[in-house]
């Protein structure tokens, strides 16, 4: 059954898009990631123009992070103050990102920027996660406890000006590095159509020592608002948000996420991270092969601009 997408100006199969939404939603529910880094590439692979895939995906991420954020809010596993600071940086980054996105689109280099960024980002994050989870698996098998982090000494960037106290996260640190982190991720999110949870969560844990109990909820809270801002900004500045496609993705994703969350309870922590690392790497390799292997068709058509 086909449905016509009014903004993308092409028909797609309803079941294909619902299915993709559900499959990615399953993975995102299972691992607690937004899934944008999987969904946007998949949309591009099935023929949705990259600009529309990126802009529309921000609406889907808003929906899935809404579901997640509410769940964490009910359990009080969410640092609103920290989330708000991150949000300010995230929105600044989103504005910059949408501007950059439109500039690259005009230059005709948007696709290359998206592909290279995905390769670098997914390769780096997937590689780090793989190493980390393999190390954890090996030490678990040997029976030695993983080396504990040495507490006490704070990294230098905690002491920068504008220090603020975050009670829930038991932190007292400068907001400058937090804002820089959130701006960078907001920028990447707007350009690549990702929420950035898979960057934000490790960064908050390893760089800022935010307790793991509140880190996912806080990250979801921040993603929720940045993606709402991204959806509106994309709609206003480049008219690339397709509401019909967004609706299909949201419905599929929301349902898939519920089943994913149940399935995720039966998987062990180390295996869990290893699987996520492999998924991230696989998407990265898929993108890398796009630009590394000699193409079957050397030529490609840009978007037609009808006057």
């Amino acid at each position, binding site marked *: 059954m*086909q*449905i*016509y997408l*009014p*903004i993308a*100006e*092409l*028909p797609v199969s309803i079941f294909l898009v619902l299915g993709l939404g559900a499959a990615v939603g399953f993975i995102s529910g299972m691992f607690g990631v937004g899934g944008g880094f999987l969904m946007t590439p998949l949309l591009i692979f099935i023929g949705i123009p990259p600009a529309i895939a990126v802009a529309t995906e921000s*609406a*889907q991420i*808003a*929906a*899935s*992070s*809404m*579901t997640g954020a*509410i*769940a964490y809010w009910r359990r009080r596993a969410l640092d609103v103050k920290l989330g708000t600071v991150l949000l300010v940086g995230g929105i600044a980054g989103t504005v910059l990102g949408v501007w950059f996105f439109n500039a690259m689109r005009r230059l*005709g*280099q948007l*696709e*290359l920027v998206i592909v*290279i960024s995905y390769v670098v980002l997914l390769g780096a994050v997937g590689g780090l996660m793989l190493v980390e989870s393999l190390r954890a698996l090996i030490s678990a098998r040997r029976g030695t406890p993983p080396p504990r982090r040495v507490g006490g000494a704070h990294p230098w960037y905690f002491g920068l000006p504008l220090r603020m106290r975050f009670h829930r996260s038991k932190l007292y640190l400068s907001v400058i590095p937090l804002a820089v982190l959130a701006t960078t991720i907001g920028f990447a999110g707007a350009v690549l159509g990702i929420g950035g949870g898979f960057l934000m969560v490790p960064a908050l844990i390893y760089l800022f020592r935010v307790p793991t109990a509140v880190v996912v909820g806080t990250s979801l809270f921040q993603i929720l608002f940045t993606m*709402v801002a991204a*959806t*509106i*900004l*994309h*709609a*206003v*500045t480049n*008219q690339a*948000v397709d*509401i*019909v496609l*967004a*609706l299909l993705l*949201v*419905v599929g994703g*929301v*349902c898939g*996420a*519920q089943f994913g969350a149940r399935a995720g309870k039966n998987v062990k922590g180390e295996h869990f991270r290893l699987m996520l690392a492999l998924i991230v790497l696989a998407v990265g390799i898929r993108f890398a092969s796009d*630009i*590394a*292997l*000699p*193409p079957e*068709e*050397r*030529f*490609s*058509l*840009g*978007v*037609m*601009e*009808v*006057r």
Partner: protein
Amino acid sequence: MGRAAALAIIAVLAAQPARAEGLVLSLSSHRVQITQTYTGAELVIFGAIMRDASSAGRQGRYDVVVTASGPKGSTVVREKVRTGPIWANLSQRKFVNVPATLAVLATREIDEVAEPILRTRYGLGLDALIVRSGPDQVEDAPFREALIRLKQEAGLYVEDGRGVTFITPGLFRATVPVPATAPVGTYDVTVALLSEGVQLARESTHFEVTKVGFEQALAQAARTRAWLYGLLTASMALLFGWMATIIFRRD
């Protein structure tokens, strides 16, 4: 004297074969409406060849070429070039005035219909239409060929040597495809009548592709009320996200 003048006029008329045949066209519809279930459309064009006394004795068969051309626009063809370890779109040519869609339907293969020079002059066939001089002077043949090939693979450009059929010797029909990804706008349909490689008559008509109803309202809202449209999309996403926590609540 009067009779000689009449004969002279007939002789002049007979020497202008373009006047001898005429075409009358009828398109099954002048409007293609894009609705939610739109997956492409087909229009049927009928044509009648009007002959007069001077062409009654014409030897040889007629050829008909139907060209349906979509809204014109600019597009970029990029070529991947190896730079270090990666293949990147580094080489590109812009085509400023090419139709978004193009369907060339004929009674036989287009290169049998007329000589290349005449095909270029009359604009018959994909090759002739995209090479045409004008503001679109693109030197590099590979890019032009790639444009045609990629458009054909996408189903946007079609050339069919069996797309026009004669029902009677003076009446023909053709099915003009409108692809699923056709943009909205005005589509020109030009019909050329040829015999032995010479164009005898040419007639054109047109049709519109428009979005209607829901699709039209959404596309227009996205353009003219972008803030509202963005807010609507975002609130819809939030609403579904919130509903999911209620529907699937386990505690």
